[in-house]
């Protein structure tokens, strides 16, 4: 009887700790719930921006859906007083950057300050997102900029000819197979796609002008917005970023902007959950890229 009680109590303790542990891994925002009440939410954007979760071969992809969900969580939770967006991304699809940017604008409208902390690289679509924050902080050697849009397609006609492959296309309109990899692109198609890229670039420029209003001269911006990259230090001199500092400086900046004086907690709002790491099997089915051969990218 006594033995059963002792072993039972031990088991209860172990199970309790196990459950707590799983809960913490699944919901890291509970991790430090015993310390402080105000929260600085951190949202990480790591890798190439896209609308799909990371696959087995692209573990660094930044899933825009998940990032947007974290932004919405930050907006809803009353204990989250400020948000730091930690970006380490070379860009990605235009839509992913735009969607995240829109969600950040909504978050800012709630009155919570948003500070961007740039990691190794915060270029192109990454910089688009940064422009949707109140304050941008970069490291001196961060690579940033690359303001521009790009669309690429590969002409595999020569290879197909050598292999004896001929693609048969049935299309409803003249341009339905625009960007096809099985033939040379026509001048008219080139014009259409260039217009798409130019329009996208104009939108990017508008986003930067809006985000950096009063911090950089619009004409100066147009001169440097040709896709070139800058170091964080140069970007700070130009007005593309507000100041230089590391991740912790960005946290401090966010605390100051939110007027947090008490002890605050730092929580990563989009940290990977325990169950996410279990779905390796489902991710493995996507060994081959599922997107089209051409995409509009920032």
């Amino acid at each position: 009887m006594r033995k059963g009680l002792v072993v039972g109590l031990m088991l209860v303790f172990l199970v309790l700790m196990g459950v707590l542990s799983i809960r913490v891994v699944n919901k890291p925002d509970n991790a430090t719930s015993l310390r402080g009440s105000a929260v600085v939410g951190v949202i990480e954007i790591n890798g190439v921006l896209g609308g799909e979760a990371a696959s087995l071969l692209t573990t660094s992809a930044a899933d825009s859906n998940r990032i947007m969900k974290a932004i919405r969580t930050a907006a809803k939770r009353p204990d989250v007083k400020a948000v730091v967006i930690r970006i380490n991304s070379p860009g990605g699809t235009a839509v992913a950057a735009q969607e995240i940017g829109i969600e950040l604008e909504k978050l800012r409208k709630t009155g919570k300050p948003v500070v961007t902390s740039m990691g190794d690289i915060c270029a192109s679509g990454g910089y688009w997102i940064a422009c949707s924050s109140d304050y941008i902080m970069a490291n001196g050697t961060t690579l940033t900029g690359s303001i521009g849009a790009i669309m690429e397609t590969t002409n595999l006609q020569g290879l197909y000819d050598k292999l004896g492959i001929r693609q048969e296309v049935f299309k409803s309109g003249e341009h339905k197979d625009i960007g096809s990899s099985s033939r040379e692109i026509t001048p008219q198609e080139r014009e259409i796609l260039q217009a798409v890229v130019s329009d996208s670039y104009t939108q990017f420029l508008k986003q930067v002008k809006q985000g950096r209003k009063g911090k950089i001269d619009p004409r100066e911006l147009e001169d440097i917005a040709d896709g070139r990259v800058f170091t964080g230090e140069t970007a700070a001199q130009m007005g593309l970023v507000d100041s230089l500092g590391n991740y912790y400086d960005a946290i401090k900046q966010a605390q100051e902007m939110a007027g947090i004086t008490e002890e605050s907690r730092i929580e990563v709002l989009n940290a990977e959950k325990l169950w996410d790491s279990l779905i390796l099997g489902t991710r493995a089915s996507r060994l081959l890229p599922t997107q089209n051969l051409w995409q509009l990218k920032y």
Partner: protein
Amino acid sequence: MSLIDTIYGIFFDPVPTLQYLAREKPLLPGLLVYLVVFVFNLIINRGLTTLDSEIAGFIPDGNFIWVFAGLGVILSFFILALTAGLLSLLSEIFYQRGNASGLLVCLSFAVIPGALGPPLQYGATLLGVSWLGVILSLLAVIWVLVLQVLSLREALELQTGQAVLLFILPGLLVVFLLLGLIFIIAQTMPSFPG
């Protein structure tokens, strides 16, 4: 002896319990207990990583963690069997006493107190006294080591000194092997053309 009696015995009355295990060799419950402790520690340690790091999300990408964990389970069973076999073999060579399967069962059950270390560390970290958690975790490790020596003593019917020597013998052999290799390399080096 039921499983509850065995677990209780490992904590509070280890010597007769290990004697019983070495004699009766309940292999399946032993391996099951070993597996449960391993998986449980894995979960708690994952929680500890999240809890301990100030920036929880900076933990490495977890995509492959369960693949590694699976490989870890297989590897740990392999190491357990190898340890039991090797120590039993060494005991046969040096002391003419062997009981590999009994030792395997004893070593499987000897890890039970190890299941307490990470949860205690986790609880202490939650309460903001992580230093105490580290000490408790270390004590759990020492407890397991002591039980492993006791396992050797009881399963192979050795004296305490013999069991300790046998326990550290594989490590000593590795050290001597490495020293020997270093010596050979040092002897060979001058012969290289300058």
